[in-house]
């Protein structure tokens, strides 16, 4: 009926209201968990990412100034944790176009995604570089605008558009190869 806004819950949480904090987390934990599932292709990694993201939110909540939406701020944190996750996983690999971070270890088949087309898409996404995968994820699944994605990833919106176009091109190749 009367759902409290994110700003209200944040204000209450900052005053130490644990109930408001729990509501805030419950409102977004599913989105973050599924973001992690699609980005890593692994339920355990998605769960680790979920906990790390909300731990960062917990620590930095007072620095949230309310200049953008809480969801956009939350997903910016999620993206940073995701980059750290990939760095940890590969020890270290430069985040450039020549050395894209492709998660070849992702095990999508273990995920219980009912829709075959969705499952195939998530599987194909694992072949993209982290940058391309993040753009596809944030655009199609999380429904952010290009401007919001650019702000979250710390790049220009033109770069985001180019990455999406290139990512879709690679996605097409991967899916065609799989069907053949």
């Amino acid at each position, binding site marked *: 009926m009367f759902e409290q806004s994110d700003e209200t819950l944040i204000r209450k*949480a*900052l*005053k*130490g*209201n*644990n109930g408001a*904090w*729990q509501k805030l*987390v*419950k409102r977004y*934990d*599913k*989105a973050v*968990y*599924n973001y992690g*599932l699609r980005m890593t292709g692994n*339920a355990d990694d998605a*769960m680790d990412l*979920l*906990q790390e993201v*909300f*731990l960062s939110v*917990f620590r930095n*909540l*007072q620095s949230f100034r309310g200049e953008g939406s809480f969801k956009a701020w939350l997903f910016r944190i999620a993206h940073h944790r995701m980059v750290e996750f990939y760095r940890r996983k590969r020890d270290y690999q430069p985040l450039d176009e020549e050395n894209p971070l492709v998660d070849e270890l992702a095990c999508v088949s273990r*995920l*219980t*995604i*009912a*829709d075959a*087309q*969705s499952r*195939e*898409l*998530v599987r194909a996404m694992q072949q993209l570089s982290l940058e391309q995968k993040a753009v*596809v994820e944030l*655009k*199609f*699944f999380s429904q952010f*605008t*290009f401007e919001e994605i650019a702000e979250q990833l710390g790049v220009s919106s*033109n770069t985001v*558009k*180019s990455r*999406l*176009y290139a990512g*879709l*091109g690679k*996605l*097409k190749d991967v*899916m065609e190869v799989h069907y053949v």
Partner: protein
Amino acid sequence: MSDKHELFALWLEGRLSAEQQQVFERLCADDDEFARQVSLARQVEQAATRYEEQPVPNWQIPAIGPQPVADSSWWRGRAMPSLSFAMSIVALVMVLFRVEVQVHGGSLTVSFAGQGREDEIRRQVDAEIAQFREQQQVLLANYSREMREQQQDVSSQLTSYLLSASRTERREDFAELIKFVNQQREDDQQFYARQFNKLQQQVYLAPETGQRDNLSPIK
């Protein structure tokens, strides 16, 4: 970024104008690669829409306590930014004018354009020269003292040598003199012995011949 990417992005967000829509449709008809991208984007959109979000496994949400509320006092809201800006300007001026602050011997020196550094260098050079001068003076004093001591040693050695040499010569001269005197005495003794022998012979012979009065003088 190409126009195609821009057009594609506008289409995805549903913000194509009528004119852009016409260009987009023409591009879809003429450009197979672009048409395939559009088709794939539609598929992905559909798949994303049909994607059923997975339930989150049970997890322990961390409990939150009272958070320190952001301090909204005037000095933090207004004075701090102004102060930060002023300090940045001061820092900029200090860098541009090469301001140097030095604490030396209990005195604080502020200098501009590297003057302080030149003074510091001059001071260090002067100190080095003074130290060098002191070292040289000490070395010279030591050297002259050693020379003096060496000369004294040589003089005393020469004196003692001269003394000992003259003493030896005198001893040798006396020995020669004594030897000469002894030789002379020996010669005299032999002479007198011969005289006595001759006289003795004359004395023994005189009673026999009765010519004691005719004794010849000893020669």
